């Protein structure tokens, strides 16, 4: 093993020479292929931004959701809750405004477009988006059925012409509060809040290219459509083997939902004088997600700026900024270009892949350049320094590439295609970053190779000298002015972040050498104390991890003070709740839903779940409610008839009435052949964890309620679905599988470490500092009571991969140094001093970049940004203190025979 490792290091030492020998050929080849890749990105990328891309299409629950949509129509709507500023949605002013707004939304074609802005939130308003509105319901147009003197009336709750007397308005309010079906759905109990339900056709519109099978040439009705029997009979033929054309519905992406919501917002915001609005539903949620994506772009730009500045200051040369950037950009171009050319569908997760390539690429380059600069400063000639740099870092870069690839490939075990694609493209990206570091970076450094000890001082050097030339008081004065203005201009959060960047950079630039020199002495002096401290942290984090709750909550995606979360809170507190789900009942029997016993069971199930979950569920609605209500109304509102009748004949005639008067509502509630129906449940917002428990318990309730109907309906299927509920379930499944794959990745990394370090003991020893950063971020979240959601878990392998990288560099270098020197002390000193600097630099650049994500409006990103950067910084502390302390204590030889295990840094230092 030792020989293999050494020969690999030698091969890496030769690599720059080989590459430089064919540099024109290599450069030309790379330019040509990159151009092809870039062309592919712009011309052939298939991008899926639909909300459904999150779901596994083969999942039975997802199939149930598709069936549901096909059968009962779109379940995507905006639930526009408003607070009447005068405190009463039934006041004259509020009712007038509600009527006007409802009318504006229904009859938007007749609005004067010049009264509306042309853009909103930077998005150009497109009036055609309003074509998605299928139905608008509000106080202004809802009706209730009433039986008066043998007449069946369908009265408006609020008459079109508002009554002149306030007392009459009071009566309307009183009537409204007595209507259970509308209370909490269209107005709150205290009538301060009202709601407008804007139903859309999202997800139920056929794709643009859809052509009906009947449009094919020479298609005509079969002969039975023209055949009347002699005895005046007429029977259409049928053939159950005839295939019914599958209709593909247009998938809706974030942009589609956002364009629609922004346009609707332009309409309703005109009423802000009377109302304060709180929109919930998929369109506003998707608008939030899109804002997050835009924000990510901004953060991305800031990230590049910070990292440019850091690289420039740390290496004091602009080539140290330019060449890594070029290497990373090429890796990204190829990693996105290859899927584009091979027809792989990308999702928004590609942004995470890019982040990963960025982090890994920068780490690879910094390690090489740090070694190169160090050799140059020792006076080595350019080519020799380059060769030495690769000899020293190549193997470690290879190992980190393999471990990171394993980490992200663990994601490809996921059931979700988008996660699999993410796993593979990320693995490819990491490999490419390695490839370009080996193949491209030497050529670039050859073109412009700063770090020449004889060269003129760089601008950064001059700036540094100037600063040190100032008197102490002047320095303090400048610092005070600088920090005050940073906080004043950027505020506490960003100001704090920029100050941290400044201080850390200052410390690293000025005191990296003294720090690295002091490390061996400290570790040699207090190895047990260091191990005890890290051990205590490790144990408490393990405890924290045991407390962690895996939970994704839609409302908690955003910050507490955000509009989105406020809307969810308001809707949960005052209305029927911001979430909905469906229990789909398929009797697999024509007219099955007309069976009184089945409807009675449905009714019973509704009562049971409403009684059992008063805090989770606000209301339920189903065909049973319609039958009961119609039965009661047809019997002059006699409450004795507020039940499911026992006769099937009666049920079918009541449903006949419902169907004739309201075919749209009927079709939204029960299938055309009355074999399928559903119970709609309005629920308060909860996390996926709670949903999972709820789903399981609901399954039991369903089984109990329908138990007696098995003989009558042997093929009865009752499934829980609904897009929000599905999202929750998938998020929870995803989070759990991520958690599992993360553990798998750690296992694989351990094996690789054992193999690379050539010793079981050494490998396991190396895994401890690897585990600590991973355990730390999860443990801290557990200790702080923060739930781990699906988004956070997606970034976790990236962060851990990066944290692990530095440790691997450290251990690999130490292993080779030990093999070469045969002395533990010398190997340790050389490792701390050589790798220490590179590890410090990569930690600074990557951790500070990730820390920037803490400012994201998306809590999943923010959490991982914060805890991730804490983990990366902690990994640095592990590398500098824990690893040496462990080596000093346990004296692992990593299979190196006759190694000198005496630790005496004073001798070693002088010997060097």
């Amino acid at each position: 093993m030792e020989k293999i490792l050494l020969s690999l290091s030698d091969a890496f030492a030769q690599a720059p020479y080989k590459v430089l020998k064919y540099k024109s050929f290599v450069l030309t080849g790379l330019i040509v292929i990159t151009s092809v890749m870039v062309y592919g990105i712009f011309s052939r990328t298939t991008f899926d931004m639909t909300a459904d891309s999150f779901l596994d299409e083969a999942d039975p629950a997802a199939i149930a959701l598709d069936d549901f949509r096909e059968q009962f129509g779109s379940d995507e709507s905006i639930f526009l809750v408003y607070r009447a500023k005068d405190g009463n949605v039934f006041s004259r002013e509020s009712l007038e405004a509600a009527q006007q707004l409802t009318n504006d939304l229904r009859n938007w074609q007749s609005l004067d477009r010049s009264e509306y802005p042309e853009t909103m939130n930077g998005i150009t308003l497109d009036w055609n988006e309003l074509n998605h509105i299928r139905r608008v319901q509000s106080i202004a147009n809802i009706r209730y059925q009433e039986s008066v003197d043998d007449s069946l009336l369908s009265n408006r709750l609020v008459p079109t012409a508002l009554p002149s007397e306030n007392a009459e308005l009071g009566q309307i309010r009183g009537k409204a509060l007595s209507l259970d079906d509308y209370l909490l759905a269209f107005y709150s109990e205290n009538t301060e809040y009202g709601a407008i339900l804007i139903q859309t056709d999202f997800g139920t519109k056929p794709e643009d290219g859809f052509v009906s099978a009947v449009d094919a040439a020479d298609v005509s009705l079969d002969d039975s459509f023209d055949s009347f029997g002699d005895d005046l009979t007429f029977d259409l033929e049928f053939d159950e083997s005839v295939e019914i054309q599958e209709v593909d519905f247009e998938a809706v992406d974030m942009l589609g939902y956002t364009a629609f919501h922004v346009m609707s917002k332009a309409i309703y915001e005109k009423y802000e004088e009377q109302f304060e609005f709180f929109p919930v539903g998929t369109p506003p949620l998707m608008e939030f997600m899109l804002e997050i994506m835009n924000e990510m772009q901004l953060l991305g730009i800031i990230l590049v700026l910070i990292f440019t500045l850091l690289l420039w200051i740390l290496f004091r040369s602009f080539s140290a900024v330019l060449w890594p950037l070029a290497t990373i950009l090429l890796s990204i171009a190829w990693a996105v270009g290859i899927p584009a050319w091979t027809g792989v569908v990308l999702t928004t997760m590609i942004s995470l892949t890019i982040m990963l390539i960025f982090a890994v690429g920068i780490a690879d380059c910094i390690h090489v350049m740090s070694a190169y600069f160090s050799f140059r400063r020792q006076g080595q000639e350019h080519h020799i320094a380059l060769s030495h740099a690769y000899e020293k870092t190549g193997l470690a870069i290879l190992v980190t590439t393999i471990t990171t690839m394993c980490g992200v490939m663990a994601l490809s075990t996921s059931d979700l295609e988008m996660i699999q694609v993410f796993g593979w493209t990320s693995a490819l990206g990491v490999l490419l970053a390695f490839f370009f570091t080996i193949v491209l970076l030497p050529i670039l450094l050859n073109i412009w190779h700063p770090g020449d000890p004889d060269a003129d001082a760089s601008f950064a050097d001059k700036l540094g000298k100037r600063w040190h030339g100032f008197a102490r008081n002047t320095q303090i004065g400048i610092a005070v002015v600088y920090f005050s203005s940073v906080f004043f201009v950027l505020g506490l959060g960003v100001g704090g972040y920029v100050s941290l960047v400044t201080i850390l950079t200052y410390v690293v630039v000025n005191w990296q050498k003294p720090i690295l020199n002091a490390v061996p002495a400290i570790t040699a002096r207090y190895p047990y104390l260091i191990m005890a401290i890290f051990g205590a942290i490790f144990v408490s984090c393990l405890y924290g991890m045991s407390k962690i709750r895996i939970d994704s909550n839609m409302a908690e995606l955003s910050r507490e003070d955000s509009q989105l979360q406020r809307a969810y809170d308001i809707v949960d507190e005052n209305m029927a709740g911001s979430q909905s789900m469906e229990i789909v009942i398929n009797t697999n029997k024509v007219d099955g839903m007309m069976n009184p016993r089945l409807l009675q069971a449905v009714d019973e199930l509704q009562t049971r779940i409403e009684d059992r979950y008063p805090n989770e569920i606000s209301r339920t609605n189903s065909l049973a409610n319609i039958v009961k209500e119609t039965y009661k109304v047809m019997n002059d509102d006699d409450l004795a008839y507020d039940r499911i009748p026992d006769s099937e004949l009666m049920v079918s005639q009541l449903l006949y009435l419902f169907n004739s008067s309201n075919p749209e509502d009927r079709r939204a509630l029960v299938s055309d052949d009355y074999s399928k129906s559903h119970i709609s449940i309005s629920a308060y917002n909860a996390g996926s964890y709670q949903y999972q428990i709820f789903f399981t318990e609901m399954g039991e309730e369903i089984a109990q309620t329908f138990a007696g109907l098995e003989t009558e309906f042997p093929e009865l299927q009752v499934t829980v679905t609904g897009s929000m509920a599905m999202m929750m379930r998938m998020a929870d499944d995803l989070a759990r599988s991520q958690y599992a794959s993360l553990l798998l990745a750690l296992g694989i990394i351990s094996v690789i470490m054992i193999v690379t370090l050539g010793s079981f003991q050494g490998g396991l020893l190396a895994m401890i500092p690897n585990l600590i950063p991973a355990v730390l971020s999860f443990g801290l979240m557990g200790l702080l009571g923060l739930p781990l959601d699906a988004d956070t878990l997606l970034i976790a392998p990236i962060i851990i991969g990066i944290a692990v990288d530095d440790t691997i560099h450290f251990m690999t270098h130490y292993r080779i140094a030990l093999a070469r020197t045969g002395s533990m002390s010398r190997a340790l000193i050389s490792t701390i001093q050589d790798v220490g600097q590179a590890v410090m630099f990569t930690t600074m650049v990557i951790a500070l970049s990730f820390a920037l994500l803490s400012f994201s409006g998306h809590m999943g990103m923010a959490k991982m940004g914060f805890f991730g950067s804490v983990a990366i910084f902690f990994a640095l502390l592990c590398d500098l203190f824990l690893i040496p302390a462990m080596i000093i204590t346990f004296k692992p030889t990593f299979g190196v025979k006759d190694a000198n295990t005496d630790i005496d840094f004073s001798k070693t230092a002088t010997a060097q």
Partner: protein
Amino acid sequence: MQNYVLSKGLISLLAALLLLPVSAFSQELSPREIMDKLEDNRRATSNSALSRMQLSTCKFGVRDGKITCAERPRVKSLESVGKGYGLDLKDTKSVAILLEPAAERGIGMLSFNYDDGARDNESWLYLSALGRVKRIASGSSDDETEPGSLFGSEFTTEDQDTGKLDEYQIKLLEETVEASREVWKIEMIPNQERARKSRYSRTVMYIDKERFIELKVEMYDRYDKEIKRLLGSRVELMNGIWIARSTTIMNLVTNRLSNMAFLEMHTGIEVPDEFLTQRTLTDAAFRETELEKLRAQIN
């Protein structure tokens, strides 16, 4: 009696007009006039008429170039009697009784439709299982009301509507051939007022030049995508009126079709006023006796 004579007179007049060689005046007819004639023809089918209809609804597929039901159709059959009243017989009273399916047998609907827009239409529903008649308050003047379905089929009240031609912009697109017949291809675009109540942004009709009936109608949604298609077939002269005995409407999105077949249609029947009252709904014996008398007129 007066009504009977009047309606007879009208029918013969219509028949005479319809049977005139088309070439004699087709050139001079404006698109609006073509539509007026089509509607007159439609109205004539329900005046002083007794008919038996069957509505079949099913999911459909296409095999070997033929549109075929892919499941056993759900069949409803009904008998209806109608009569014109008022000036030009433009007000109508009608009663419809469901015969099939068994669960809905005896459900009846009595409707009074008034030509005068200011007067609300009236209707009464009888559910046989409940044994009670309920007057259904009509919302016809209310633009919030969605088009109702005809007995739960793909036909909506909008597809069956007559009148209101003033609310459309009517345009002759071309003269062409459909189902081997010469037709006018006419486009109807609802005005803003009408568009609010309509499911369709426009309809394109293929009207038989000789017989003034629709052989095909394409209905387009607000994205200008054809969502429904109606096909008229088995065109016959029944009691002097051209009628498509079998009309099929296909929903191109849900792949469901409904067919309306006139099993029987007899016009020129003298319908006593007492028949068009609530008693016909509730009193089955009375209804059967009266129907027998009406049928006797046919023979």
